[in-house]
């Protein structure tokens, strides 16, 4: 049966809460209200107020408290109401959570759910894609599923991971993306990318909401004889370089697509690694399709011009294929 991306997240949380009584959730308005996006609707009734904790409006304390509970072996799952407010907990994440297991060898099994991304007319403070900040921070794992199956499987894997994982869930996909999920414990391993569409002309390396857009670009280019290979990273940290390199070795042409601004985005690192590790296979420049270097704009016209989409991807992919 097809379910939404949001429902897949809900199922993963539900099943993990059910499986392990050390798993609990904390965040703003996740209990009585069921979360700003209703991801945790019904959880309070089922699991009670001690495992579904409505907190004060204090991102830093929420993450800090989750770290503390994790140090005692519990498995907290924090919901940021919007990924945009993760900057309020930045210090706890980068200085405490990320460095603790390196410094002391103690596990910190913590998951932070970060509803991110645009396309929902929500402006500079409810649309950001902040994953690149954390990509630079050693000690954090980052996942960003694009389908219900991965959303469910990666969240389960994240909750069972011994150390901090930031789980980027895309707000646009919540209700726009549907798909099958397997019953039961279908874990998606952290650190494994997936070739979503095999192809021979150009490797499109992407994640999150841009996977669908890249597949759309592939459809668009098929009639022209341009055959895109779409690689869905799924995990951003650590990168699955084996899969990326295998794809680029095959196609000889690579582009990276993400919704976050290009400058300083994760695409830069992937392109850089390709420019080092796949140099001999490259037949063309490595391109990046990503948002421009401005804050995320509000007005729909600006938003449309800001966000990458299938058209823009197809344009660049054509350029690359014809290089």
């Amino acid at each position, binding site marked *: 049966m097809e379910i939404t991306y949001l429902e897949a997240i809900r199922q993963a949380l539900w099943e993990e809460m059910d499986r392990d009584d050390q798993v609990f959730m904390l965040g703003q308005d996740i209990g009585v209200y069921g979360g700003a996006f209703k991801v945790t609707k019904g959880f309070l009734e089922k699991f009670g107020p001690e495992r579904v904790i409505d907190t004060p409006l204090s991102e*830093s304390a929420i993450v800090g408290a989750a770290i503390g509970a994790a140090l005692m072996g519990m498995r907290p799952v924090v919901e940021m109401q919007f990924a945009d407010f993760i900057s309020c907990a930045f210090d706890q994440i980068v200085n405490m959570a990320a460095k603790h297991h390196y410094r002391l060898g103690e596990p910190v099994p913590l998951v932070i759910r970060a509803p991110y991304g645009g396309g929902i007319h929500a402006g500079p403070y409810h649309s950001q894609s902040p994953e690149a900040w954390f990509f630079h921070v050693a000690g954090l794992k980052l996942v960003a599923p694009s389908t219900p199956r991965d959303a469910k499987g990666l969240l389960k894997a994240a909750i069972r991971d011994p150390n901090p994982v930031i789980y980027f869930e895309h707000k646009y996909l919540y209700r726009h993306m549907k798909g099958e999920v397997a019953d039961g414990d279908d874990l998606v391993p952290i650190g494994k990318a997936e070739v979503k569409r095999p192809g021979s002309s150009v490797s499109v390396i992407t994640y999150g909401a841009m996977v669908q857009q890249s597949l759309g670009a592939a459809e668009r280019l098929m009639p022209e004889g341009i055959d895109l290979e779409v690689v869905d990273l799924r995990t951003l940290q650590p990168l699955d370089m084996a899969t990326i390199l295998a794809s680029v070795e095959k196609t000889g042409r690579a582009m990276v697509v993400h919704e976050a601004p290009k400058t300083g985005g994760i695409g830069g690192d992937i392109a850089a690694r390709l420019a080092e590790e796949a140099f001999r296979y490259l037949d063309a420049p490595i391109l990046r399709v990503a948002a421009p270097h401005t804050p995320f704009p509000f007005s729909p016209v600006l938003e449309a011009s800001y966000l990458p989409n299938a058209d823009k991807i197809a344009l660049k992919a054509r350029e690359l294929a014809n290089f």
Partner: protein
Amino acid sequence: MPVDNVTPTELLKIYYYLKLTRGLEQRVITLYRQGRIVGGVYISAGEEAIAVGSAAALEADDVIAPSHRDLGANLMKGITPKEYLAQYLGKQTGLTRGRDGNVHYGDIKRGVIGFISPMADLLPVAAGVGLAFKLRRERRVVAAFFGDGASSRGDFHEALNLAAVMKLPLVFICHNNQYAYSTPLERQMAIEHVADRAKAYGMPGVTVDGNDVLAVRSAVAEAASRARQGGGPTLVEGKTMRMRGHAEHDDASYVPAWMLEEWRKLDPIDRFGGYLRERQILDDAIATEIDDRLSKEIEEAVAFAEASPFPEGKGPNQLRLAALLAP
């Protein structure tokens, strides 16, 4: 209600802004239901007295740091209904030219610090504006608004402490409207009055009936006058109630019906209207005149906003930042 030397003209001005706020927001709700608004809608209905009463206590060159429920104060500082509506429609004529939306606007030239989403972020910024006044020996004051929920954020603490240590000319004004989104007060703090937090900073804390516009005005006026004389900051808490959902998508079913019923009886505009009528400052004729003026102003604003162009998707608008970034 204390009269506090407020002239009838001023009282009518306060009444006008209360009604303008209510009317404009009501209009935005309608537009929202018609699908003509971009994104979410944040309403201050029932708590207009805090914004308007506070702004009424300020001098023309004072500055405000609004929260998302301070339309009334923004209007009194000179933000126009046209700009307000254009902002909600994502138009070029909004104060952010479409770059930001709904309640996220301001204009420092008119003394309004542009509001941003992260709750309490504007409190340190407001302290900095006050610091500039102090360093320049200007006798100006900053009124900084925030909610009960925002008072749980670290920035609230750091800002109030900094302002107190430096004796900055600030009035911190809390809309204690019983809820932060779905979170009721008792899950937000283990104290009864947000004003009690003032004790942690060595500044005066005052709790007032936030639905009594003159009570708010007089508390803020007293605090502002102390601040202006170098006496440092004050925390003023207005008790009120969020009468609608957190935003218009939220039916607020978590709020007990009796609470809304009780508070509805305390509606600040009804109460202030009654007070003005008692004192014969307001009568049916004046009320009708005001209502007419209001609906004209509001409808003109709607027409203006709808007729306004969207910003251009490419070109100068997006490039402006590049220019700012260039050396």
